[in-house]
């Protein structure tokens, strides 16, 4: 019985893990360049979930959603959401972080926490005024399942999450690896003052980093809403924490690390949720899955503090 649910458990873990991974990229990109943890990134994800849901609700209200190809609807929702959350990320950087550059490290961190609360409350108020409640049900675009080799069934919405996450990761990898601005982002991460000698506008590169990270975070919000159906203004906190954890697990500042760390954390959580109860005779049930996942994290960091893909940090002179 334990083994028969394994494929399902793995598929669930992948779906969750890929969402962690894409959000983790936003944390790790900003950290790579500014050595700053953008704690508001989880809330960008949450705003993405709400923007996406509103796009679909409004499209539905004007009667356009019915009869629309679900893939077209998803594509439209993603594009609108990514543009808006990308702009939101850039705006936050401009107003809440850039004026604090050069301040002691804790200061922008506090600013980020402030932005988190602000975003939660703005979304809550807006939805409470507009819809009289702030728990929203997303119009789910995909129903049905596909069978994988007859041993597991994946809901199509889960498959959509996995495939889109992979597409986004490949696109990002190509951008960072091959394009001029991508190389410039890596150059600025390594040595901003020298990069500026090469005519690279460091502020622009930082804006671009927030733009990309935030649009990826927003896109994940849309995928999350599609997958779980219900959202509230506080979903960004726990998912953000997990994604941040994934980034640290993989080695903060390292893109590949964030991807692997995310998928790994999702898997661990899913496995723990399914098997801890049966294996411990119900002494520790599924509610302990986070304890298990984070224990693994602590173990990894005890032996490899720089994370799986990170490099041992030398103190900068």
């Amino acid at each position, binding site marked *: 019985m334990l083994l028969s649910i394994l494929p399902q458990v793995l598929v669930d873990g992948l779906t969750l893990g890929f969402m962690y991974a894409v959000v983790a990229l936003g944390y790790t990109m900003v950290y790579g360049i500014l050595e700053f943890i953008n704690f508001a990134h989880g809330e960008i994800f949450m705003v993405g979930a709400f923007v996406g849901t509103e796009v679909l609700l409004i499209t539905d209200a004007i009667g356009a959603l019915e009869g629309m190809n679900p893939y077209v609807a998803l594509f439209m929702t993603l594009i609108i959401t990514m543009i808006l959350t990308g702009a939101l990320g850039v705006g936050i950087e401009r107003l809440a972080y850039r004026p604090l550059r050069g301040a002691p490290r804790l200061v922008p961190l506090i600013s980020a926490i402030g932005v988190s609360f602000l975003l939660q409350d703005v979304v809550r108020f807006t939805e409470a005024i507009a819809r009289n409640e702030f728990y929203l049900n997303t119009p789910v675009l995909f129903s049905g399942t596909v069978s994988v080799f007859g041993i597991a069934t994946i809901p199509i919405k889960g498959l959509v999450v996995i495939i889109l996450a992979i597409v986004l990761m490949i696109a990002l990898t190509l951008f960072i690896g091959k394009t001029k601005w991508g190389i410039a982002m890596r150059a600025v991460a390594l040595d901003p003052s020298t990069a500026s*000698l090469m*005519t*690279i506008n460091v502020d622009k590169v930082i804006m671009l980093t927030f733009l990309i990270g935030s649009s990826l975070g927003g896109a994940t919000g849309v995928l999350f809403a599609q997958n779980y159906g219900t959202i509230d203004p506080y979903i960004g906190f726990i998912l953000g924490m997990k994604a941040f954890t994934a980034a640290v697990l993989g080695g903060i500042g390292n893109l590949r690390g964030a991807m692997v760390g995310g998928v790994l954390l999702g898997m661990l959580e899913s496995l723990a949720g399914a098997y801890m109860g049966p294996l411990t005779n119900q002494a520790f049930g599924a509610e302990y899955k986070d304890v298990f996942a984070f224990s693994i994290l602590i173990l990894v960091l005890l032996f490899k503090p720089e994370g799986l893909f990170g490099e041992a940090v030398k103190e900068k002179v």
Partner: protein
Amino acid sequence: MALLELQNVHTFYGGIHALKGLSISVNPGEVVTLIGSNGAGKSTTLKTICGQTRAREGKIIFDGKDITQMKTHDIAMLGIAHVPEGRRIFPKLTVQENLEMGAFFTKDKHLIQEGIERAFQYFPRLKERISQKGGTMSGGEQQMLAIARGLMMKPKILMLDEPSMGLAPILVEQIFEIVTELNREGTTILLVEQNANQALSVAHRGYVIQTGEIILKDDAKTLLANPQVREAYLA
């Protein structure tokens, strides 16, 4: 008219009055060297020119433009390539990527490729290393890469900060030969050096800087023969 001119520049660096009314000029086509001992303000001078540390007083004019308050990347855009002290290549980028960054504002891919080919003519060693990460190369190769990266910009002036530092004598020789060659092909060069002997032998003119002030300026040949210079910097 001078290509680059510093007029009575004062710079403070971490509370220290690092440049005390510095005035130097570089004419088009010249190799000018700024020599002095460690901590005299040589690197600060270059950093002040490219806006990495701000002049609190005085004026910096480049190509007829006041650049004193401009941002570093905008100053670079005008055609000032600064090859900083300690090379500062991007260690995790490949040689090719490092060079591409040098030509960041060039949109035309053919021009970038031409620039890379030209850099390889000066530094054939880099061609063999094209897809290697910069940080894995030897100090001499990194210095070559740093200079090549500066040349990618096709600068009006190339500012070199201690290019000979930490290099074996044979490599130092080679670097100074390249400086002469670049100049012969028309590049104006401002060379900051502790290695005064070598620097003065490739330069047209020289300035001697001591605790943030110019104490001597003359033709390079005259400075080389100056007993005061010989004793302090050529011993």
